[in-house]
């Protein structure tokens, strides 16, 4: 179990890294919208976390961990991570603001880069990444709650 914890936490820096990337140079990338079922009720912060997986009670385990829905000034944001064999194999925003072109542009880039970042940082066994300035607090708050559910 501790090995799992180690692997997950070591990706945090990489996970949150991507949200600050400029988007203007990237084209329209396909975004996995996932199941955008959560909280259509709008801006209210609804901490309706869902956890599904085979984790044995208190321990961190394989499965998916969906973070809280966090209200931001642009709309609700919610992040989901998938953990398999002690590693984060996928990380997606299942809910995000898409009310205007700028939001879509950001999301179109943020989500694929997120997945790539996870894989790169895990393969490299790194604890931190230097070089990015990140800005989006809503994603971070939701991601943190997903990590908390993974018992970190």
């Amino acid at each position: 179990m501790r090995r799992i914890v180690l692997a997950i936490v070591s990706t945090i820096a990489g996970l949150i890294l991507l949200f600050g990337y400029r988007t203007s140079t990237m084209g329209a990338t396909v975004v996995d919208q996932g199941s955008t079922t959560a909280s259509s009720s709008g801006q209210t912060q609804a901490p309706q976390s869902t956890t599904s997986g085979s984790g044995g009670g208190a321990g961190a385990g394989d499965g998916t961990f969906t973070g809280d829905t966090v209200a931001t000034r642009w709309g609700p944001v919610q992040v989901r991570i998938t953990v398999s064999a002690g590693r984060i194999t996928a990380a997606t925003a299942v809910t995000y603001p898409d009310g205007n072109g700028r939001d879509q542009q950001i999301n179109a880039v943020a989500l694929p880069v997120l997945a790539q970042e996870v894989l790169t940082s895990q393969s490299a066994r790194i604890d931190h990444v230097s070089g990015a300035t990140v800005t989006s607090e809503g994603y971070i708050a939701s991601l943190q709650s997903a990590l908390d559910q993974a018992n970190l």
Partner: protein
Amino acid sequence: MTTVTMPRRAWVEQVMGLPVSIHLRGAAVRDPGVAHAVAASFAELRMIDALFSTYRTDSEVSRVNTGQLALADAHPMLREIAELCELARDRTDGGFDARLPSPRGGTWWDPSGVVKGWATERAARSLAAVSTLAGHDVSVNAGGDIAVSSGRRDSTGWRIGVEDPDRPGRLLLVVPLRQGGVATSGTAARGLHIHDPRTGRPAQALRAATVVGPSLLWADVYATAAMVRGTGAQAWLEGLPAYDGVLVTAEGRVTATSGLAGLAPGQPEVLAADR
């Protein structure tokens, strides 16, 4: 793969306009007192931001700039930072300068370039000094500028990847660090936002400069100064005792100072070409 199974824990909060994460490694990371110490660190960072933010009209820095507050009457932290800003200007031959030309004439004081590294380093140091955390590894990451310490004798320290500015998600190299800081200055995330304080012109010769050394504050200052210095930056960094750097030129050429030579491009530690 390492066999170390040391417990770890991480916290993330948005402070100073950045995501700031605190990472601890060691036996007591789940001790309730540790969570309180982490909360206190975030609280202090917020207090520092309230003093120094140039975006808040009610911050002490803003009030010093508008003449409502004399530096002599300001919080002692402002005077400490003012001295560090002067030292930074001297050590970088003016490549770093907190005094900027104001749009309305005169000068404007923006110490942000010193405050961020100083505050992050201070948070890491105060956590390392918490008695429960004796013998623990501590790191604080403020938007990609990272301060670390390693209190465990058997620790290999923290492994810090330096991002390839041209390929987000890829790394130029990985720096193992037990004590000190790593800071990156560059144009990838924010465009040409670094200007030579002596000429006012944007720094364009380098795309990114990462500096590693015993202090995050100085690594950050030197990274900014390296960007300003441009083509002469590598020779200048070589002359700084205890600090090393990785530079990416506007043309995409990557160079590293001698202290990082073992980790430089072409070596096995380099991960950019792994995948």
